[in-house]
């Protein structure tokens, strides 16, 4: 029987124009290359974060140049600076407002562990209040270190089971 429907089945005319892949690979590829940061600049480390965004280091090479000051539009929170106990609940609230999927980078000694501020006013690591994916050492870390962290995060995002996570959420 000859069918008039040519859309189903093999069509030699579109050969080469079709790529077969896994949904995970496609979704992760899209996600890794446009991680929009939420710049949570709280202290001196934020200056290096700005340098990472400026022309010399150019975070745009990794698709993360769109610093969104609106949490609804951002994918990764970069906590750059000293998290005081006064600020910590606010950081968490902003993190909660970010749409999933979301990630967090703790940039610098202060955000990772409290740094040199072993004192009554400073939270001893932002991971006590939000889940952190990548920690960056340094006081402050150089912009290259932040870019390295971003690449590490991209590797991590690239291995996620995004499709099944979509159904889970």
């Amino acid at each position, binding site marked *: 029987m000859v069918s008039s429907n040519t859309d189903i089945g093999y069509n030699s005319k579109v050969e080469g124009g079709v790529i077969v892949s896994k949904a995970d690979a496609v979704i992760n590829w899209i996600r890794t290359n446009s991680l929009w940061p939420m710049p949570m600049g709280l202290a001196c480390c934020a200056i290096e974060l700005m340098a990472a965004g400026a022309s010399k280091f150019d975070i745009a090479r990794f698709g993360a140049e769109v610093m969104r000051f609106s949490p609804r539009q951002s994918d990764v929170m970069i906590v750059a600076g000293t998290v005081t*106990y006064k600020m910590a*609940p606010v950081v*968490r609230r902003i993190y909660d407002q970010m749409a999933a999927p979301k990630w967090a980078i703790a940039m610098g000694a202060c955000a990772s562990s409290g740094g*040199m501020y*072993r004192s*009554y006013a400073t939270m001893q690591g932002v991971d006590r*209040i939000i889940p952190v994916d990548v920690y960056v050492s340094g006081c402050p870390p150089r912009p290259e270190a932040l870019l390295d962290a971003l690449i590490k995060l991209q590797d991590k995002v690239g291995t996620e089971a995004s499709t099944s996570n979509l159904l889970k959420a």
Partner: protein
Amino acid sequence: MIAQELLAALQGVAPQTSERPSADCPAFNCPLDSLIPVLRALRDNHGYDMLVDATGLDNGVESSPRFTVLYHLLSTATHSYARIAADCADDETPLAPSAVELWPAAEWHERECFDLLGIKYENHPDLRRILMWDEYPHHPLRKDFPLAGHEEDLWDQEISDETGTKVISAPMMGGPFVAKSSKFENEREPRAKDESWNEKNPKPEGQSRK
């Protein structure tokens, strides 16, 4: 010389004003209730038109009077400084008059002093904490407050319930951390004073934190 002339002039305003030991600019002690008239005289009659700093002093838990308020003034005409100190009467809840009516700049300085030392300023227009959160129960720059702090709830109840996080007293790990003086930079790195105790080896009992 300036100090003697100033002292004589200020004693005209408040007779108990006396000279205060000072390594730099002229400094005076005055009774708390004449603090504002003395400051006003310095501002209006002696050209000290700028308030450089308003701060406080905890003289130690044992001492009485325990708290002192300090005002640092600058004359922008003669470029000379002066310092006025007044002891607070109460050692637990010290009270002091506010200088905001003389210099609006005193507002935030006095708020900081209230926040960290617990000195209450009378007639202050907006005496709230400026650095710590409003519900914080302690005054951290008092001498009996440990550097590590005390355990406390987070000020945001919702976040506190969600994360289970508290304000903890900071791990001191043999600290405080001090830089040694040395010719070599790598030896000047800040180190804990007593490295024998840390997260793995607990601090020996009965040893006071220096």
